[in-house]
């Protein structure tokens, strides 16, 4: 099976250019990468052990390590072969050169150690991406102050001719797919409004948030919770709240800076704002039941990669080999996250956390120390020194001070929140109402209700004792009713306790009495529940003796608890309305307090503020690069998660900086960024080589200079959503719990569950993102995609709907073909294409006819047969072929 992977091509290319030593050694190709891997971490810009740098010919020759033309005299060769203390790289600090590599070095030196004059960084801080972001025109007044100006300047410089703007309908299709992830309708393709107005309208559509949420969810590693059966091991249940926050934030054009602050520290920046706290799903997603270090490693790695384009993870075991990041930096960053934990808070209207809840983070272990792990081994912490929280020293200059923050009561005592209290009460009341209803329906004689009485009872007056009615209902209904009444009374009493704690205003003595009474009512309710449970078991025709024994035991211990409570010997059970994610499988929920720390360290907030500081040279650049790549198909900086020293300054560095400045100055408006990009002439160019200037084509076949638009492919979600949209079947509803991947919903693909255990079978074939890491989508072309597009039922249903609808609008095969071409591909067919389609529609294979005749019994089919020129079956097959057309899945 042939696999056309961009990355695989790159590898093949890399191998092809590798040639025998005899063919001549090339410094840039053969030697430079070798020295970089083996030597530079100690003899380069980061460190100059023995005052030696091996990253420039001059320094190598001056130091006498390389003697051009004389391999035998070159210390470099002696050292790589040495087997004693002189061995390089030293034992344990890198693998030795291979024989092939040795020969390359030897041949290179023998041939004179030729190497181009390369600018070498004097200091790692000179690296381009570490420089402050400045508007290019401010740096150099001669530089244009627009995206197109900068790109065109380079085109002019190299005398390259740009392609014309893409045909309008193709451009609109490109724009719709880009901004909404949905194809335009026929009417939208003919929209007469100016292009810019359409751009604004699309950016204002709520579907924009759905489209771009998925892009950011790739980068931010969205994954629904998963584990083994009932045991949650990774991520969190109900993580879709974070997804909805992303969609809403994008639609509201919340600043990217604010989004980062909320994702890392909404619980510190806005402790009572549940909407904002949804954002901390970004951190909650890293939850891992079995190992805190792995959990934090993931948090650190992906926080740094996603926002900063730094491979901080490489500094976990030793100083970073290529970037100025030390192992100490790694553990300083770890200390920022050390106190945080994850919990599920109740959401308004639902107190059952299994049904719904808000996954969020909070600082739990405020004083948990962080130690450096020697060689990255968590079993070897260096306890001689506690690591203070902080950002990498390289950029620590603008780190805001870390200040702990006092939290409002509702933030750390969820049971005191008014909505939580109301919801708990409502649940208890609903239970009572249901029990009453049930009791009524089984009672022959109208019970003299105590309802009014009960409503007027103070919470401290236990139900059941004042019962005065005559009961002639079933004993079971009565038990249920009593249990519900007891439960309500207990809940009321507990809520009062929780509220009094917050509101204050009661003396310690009163509070103590309230707790004692609440405890008694809780015990009473437990007895009622236990009685009910036992009775329910005994009601069965053949009660299971084991279960009965267990229920009896439960009743006995509930009775004992009640006696203790009556003597004031049983402590009040605080209401447990939220659920902390277990720190270890050995823990139980009951091990954790119901009220969380009233302070938070402020560490994550400081980190977030540092990331979005205008002094931070990385954040805006990394963001722009991600957005650019998703519009143009190719990034400006190839290594999208690594802007470190290994990332060479990009060709369009000025474009990157222009857009980064615009982003920051617009208040980090992503919509502003989109608008700048999609309204540029560069974006609007045709993606075809057709009619290209031959010199341009020869000089820049890869389109590095952006003289045309890159060709892109729809992401998996866009393939499915487009089919459903064109069929008129797409349900555009926003938000809510993730859908099971087995459901054949017509909602947008974003809303399906996505985790290790949840991959949608159709979506998975089109390079659906790996939930563990996907900073960039693959664009493979594999035969299974073709099979899905031809054979999947979903596709067949969609094309049938399309053909059924469109056939009414067409009077001839030619018209139908034109119409289908236009809607599916955004362009009219060429004469040859039209001919091929007409021939197809007119052809009359026996089986197609038979199938068409089979459709006649339904009235609809008869109407369609009115087209004597072609059968509805042929029309459907034509549409089926067109969704398999390369230009359907391609964004032209």
């Amino acid at each position, binding site marked *: *099976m*042939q696999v056309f*992977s961009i990355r695989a091509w790159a590898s093949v290319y890399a191998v092809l250019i590798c040639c025998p030593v005899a063919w001549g050694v090339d410094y840039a190709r053969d030697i430079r990468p070798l020295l970089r891997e083996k030597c530079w971490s100690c003899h380069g810009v980061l460190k100059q052990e023995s005052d030696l740098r091996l990253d420039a010919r001059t320094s190598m020759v001056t130091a006498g390590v390389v003697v051009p033309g004389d391999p035998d005299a070159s210390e470099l060769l002696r050292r790589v*072969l040495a087997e004693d203390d002189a061995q390089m790289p030293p034992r344990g600090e890198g693998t030795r050169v291979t024989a092939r590599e040795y020969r390359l070095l030897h041949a290179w030196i023998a041939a004179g150690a030729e190497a181009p004059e390369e600018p070498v960084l004097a200091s790692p801080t000179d690296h381009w991406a570490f420089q402050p972001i400045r508007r290019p025109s401010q740096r150099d007044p001669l530089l244009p102050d627009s995206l197109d100006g900068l790109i065109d300047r380079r085109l002019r410089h190299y005398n390259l001719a740009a392609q014309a703007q893409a045909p309008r309908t193709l451009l609109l299709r490109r724009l719709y797919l880009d901004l909404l992830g949905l194809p335009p309708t026929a009417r939208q393709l003919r929209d007469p409004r100016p292009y810019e107005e359409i751009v604004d309208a699309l950016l204002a559509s709520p579907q924009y948030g759905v489209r771009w949420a998925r892009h950011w969810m790739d980068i931010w590693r969205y994954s629904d919770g998963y584990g083994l059966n009932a045991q949650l091991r990774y991520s969190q249940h109900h993580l879709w709240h974070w997804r909805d926050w992303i969609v809403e934030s994008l639609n509201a054009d919340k600043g990217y800076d604010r989004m980062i602050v909320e994702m890392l520290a909404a619980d510190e920046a806005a402790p009572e704002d549940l909407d904002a706290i949804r954002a901390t799903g970004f951190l909650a997603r890293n939850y891992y039941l079995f190992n805190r270090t792995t959990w934090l490693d993931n948090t650190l790695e992906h926080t740094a990669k996603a926002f900063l384009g730094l491979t901080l993870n490489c500094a976990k075991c030793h100083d970073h080999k290529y970037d100025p990041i030390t192992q100490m930096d790694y553990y300083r960053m770890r200390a920022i996250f050390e106190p945080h934990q994850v919990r599920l808070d109740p959401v308004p209207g639902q107190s059952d956390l299994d049904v719904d809840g808000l996954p969020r983070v909070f600082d739990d272990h405020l004083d948990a120390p962080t130690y450096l792990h020697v060689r990255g081994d968590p079993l070897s912490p260096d306890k001689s020194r506690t690591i203070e929280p902080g950002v990498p020293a390289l950029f620590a200059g603008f780190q805001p001070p870390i200040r702990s923050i006092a939290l409002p009561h509702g933030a750390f005592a969820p049971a005191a929140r008014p909505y939580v209290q109301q919801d708990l009460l409502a649940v208890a009341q609903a239970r009572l109402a249901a029990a009453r209803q049930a009791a009524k329906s089984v009672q022959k004689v109208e019970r003299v209700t105590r309802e009014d009485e009960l409503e007027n009872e103070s919470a401290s007056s236990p139900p059941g004792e004042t019962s005065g009615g005559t009961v002639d209902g079933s004993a079971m209904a009565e038990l249920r009713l009593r249990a519900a009444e007891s439960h309500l009374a207990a809940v009321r009493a507990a809520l009062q306790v929780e509220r009094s704690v917050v509101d204050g205003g009661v003396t310690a003595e009163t509070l103590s009495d309230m707790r004692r009474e609440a405890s008694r009512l809780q015990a009473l309710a437990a007895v009622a529940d236990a009685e009910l449970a036992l009775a329910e078991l005994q009601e069965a025709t053949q009660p299971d003796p084991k279960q009965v024994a267990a229920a009896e035991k439960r009743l006995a211990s509930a009775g004992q608890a009640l006696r203790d409570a009556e003597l004031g010997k049983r402590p009040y059970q605080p209401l447990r309305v939220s659920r902390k994610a277990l720190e270890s499988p*050995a823990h139980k929920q009951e091990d954790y307090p119901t009220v969380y720390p009233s302070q938070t360290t402020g560490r994550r907030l400081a980190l977030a503020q540092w990331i979005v500081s205008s002094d931070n040279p990385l954040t805006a650049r990394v963001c722009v690069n991600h957005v650019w790549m998703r519009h143009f198909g190719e990034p400006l900086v190839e290594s999208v998660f690594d802007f470190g020293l290994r990332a060479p300054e990009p060709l369009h560095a000025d474009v990157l900086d222009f857009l980064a400045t615009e982003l920051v100055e617009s208040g980090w408006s992503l919509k502003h960024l989109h608008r700048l990009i999609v309204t540029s002439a560069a974006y609007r160019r045709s993606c075809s080589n057709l009619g290209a200037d031959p010199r341009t084509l020869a000089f820049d076949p890869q389109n590095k200079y952006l003289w045309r638009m890159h060709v892109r492919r729809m992401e998996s979600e866009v393939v499915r959503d487009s089919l459903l949209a064109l069929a008129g079947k797409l349900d555009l509803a926003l938000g809510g719990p993730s859908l099971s991947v087995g459901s054949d919903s017509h909602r947008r693909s974003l809303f399906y569950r996505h985790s290790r255990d949840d991959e949608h079978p159709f979506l998975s074939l089109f390079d659906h993102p790996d939930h563990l890491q996907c900073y960039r989508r693959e664009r493979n072309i594999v035969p299974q995609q*073709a099979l899905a597009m031809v*054979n*999947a039922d979903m596709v067949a249903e969609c094309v049938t709907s399309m053909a059924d609808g469109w056939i009414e609008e067409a009077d001839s095969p030619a018209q139908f073909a034109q119409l289908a071409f236009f809607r599916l591909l955004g362009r009219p067919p060429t004469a040859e294409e039209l001919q091929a389609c007409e021939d197809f529609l007119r052809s009359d294979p026996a089986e197609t006819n038979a199938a068409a005749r089979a459709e006649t019994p339904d009235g609809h089919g008869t109407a369609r047969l009115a087209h004597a020129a072609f059968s509805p079956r042929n029309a459907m097959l034509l549409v089926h072929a067109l969704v398999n057309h390369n230009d359907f899945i391609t964004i032209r």
Partner: protein
Amino acid sequence: MSRGVGGLALANLLAQDAPAGPSESAGKADSSDFAPGSGPGGGPHFSPRARSVIWLFMRGGVSHLESFDPKPALNRYAGKTIASTPFADVQNPERLKKVRVVVVNDANGQQRNVLYPLQVGFRKWGQSGIEVSHLFPHIGGCVDDIAVIRSMWTTDDNHGAQVQFHSGRHMLEPRVPTIGAWVTYGLGSLNENLPQFIGMGPRYFDRRDGHYLGPAYDAVQLKIDPQTPLAYARPEGDMTGGEQRRVFDLVHTLNRLDGSLYPGDERLEARLKSYELAFRMQTSVPEIVKFSDETESTQRLYGLDQDATREFGQQLLAARRFVERGVRFIQIMHGGGAAGAWDQHSNLKQKHTELARQVDRPIAGLLRDLKQRGMLDSTIVVFATEFGRTPGSQGGNGRDHHPFGFSVWMAGGGIRGGMVHGATDEIGFHAVESPHYVTDIHATLLHQLGLDSRRLHVPGHQRLERDYGHVIHDILA
């Protein structure tokens, strides 16, 4: 500064770089190394001994003590605590350190101190006289073609070790490509009508293979179902074969015409080709899992005639048919459930007997069939599991997870048959003679396929020393 380069040192370097094997000299390996087109996707680095791999993985942890590594001392000391035997040092905490615990204080994955006697007998098989337990009589009959490696070790004491056996990385470390993905990445395709990397049977901990190589290097999961062995292998709706042919034809015509609007679009060319392949795959894949053209005796060889062996046997027969058609790597998992069926914390004897019955005859059938067709020379069969089981008993009738020493075996593709390599100590606790970490299996496979594991890497993704493994030269023919 010293003058000259030590000849000895250079020779050492060469030996270490490209070890000499019977099939090629270091020099030969090195020179073909530079041939344009070798390496990722373009074929082997040097001349290969094998073309394909059939990877059989028993999920849950097969007891080495009841399969391929007999330890009579367990019978002698049965019921004694390890500490009271002469072998007490096996539990020396220093020697237990290599394990990296995932679930601290889990019910499983613990030291089991009271020695548990062998639950099944062993006998010598074949010319080589290698001992194999009574659970695997058919495999025993093939032992002269097998190299048993009795000295494997790994570092995960829980079933995440399944991930580790395939990727070389512990469960707590980042996911990296599996051996099947690397082979596919390194060698590319022999038959464009078929996926090059096929998976069958249950998976759990890691459902992807490619990871940073990309989804194109994930195993394509197949079922033994001639109707739909592969997702979307036939129209799910009412489209007839003839209609589908017409659709494919029209797509082809239109995509060809599209070339005039988009000259030089490589991806258009690729898509055209992918549709041709897709059309052929629809027939080629179902044909492989339809066994009607296999003789009754072949089908019996794989156990297709018996309920216990049918399911696994069908997968193995399909594997042979895939290998015949040039598929590179067929990864077959045996044993369902999250942990894997072979996880006998209790009822070891009964459950292992049952499971061994499901695989023993089909695997022996596969080896015999490959051999009689002359395919065994170029096909490596691997029988592996994530770890062994404790010499001590768990709950009186089971054994716990045991990462310190366990057995796997390989056959075919230039692997020497009828040999045992490496050994555990007297009670089967530690791999003591020629111990091998799991990636040594990978390195050996890659070597036989003509790939140098050290040269398989992707820029931006660091491989660790341990990821590369070392070729087990002793087992090469």
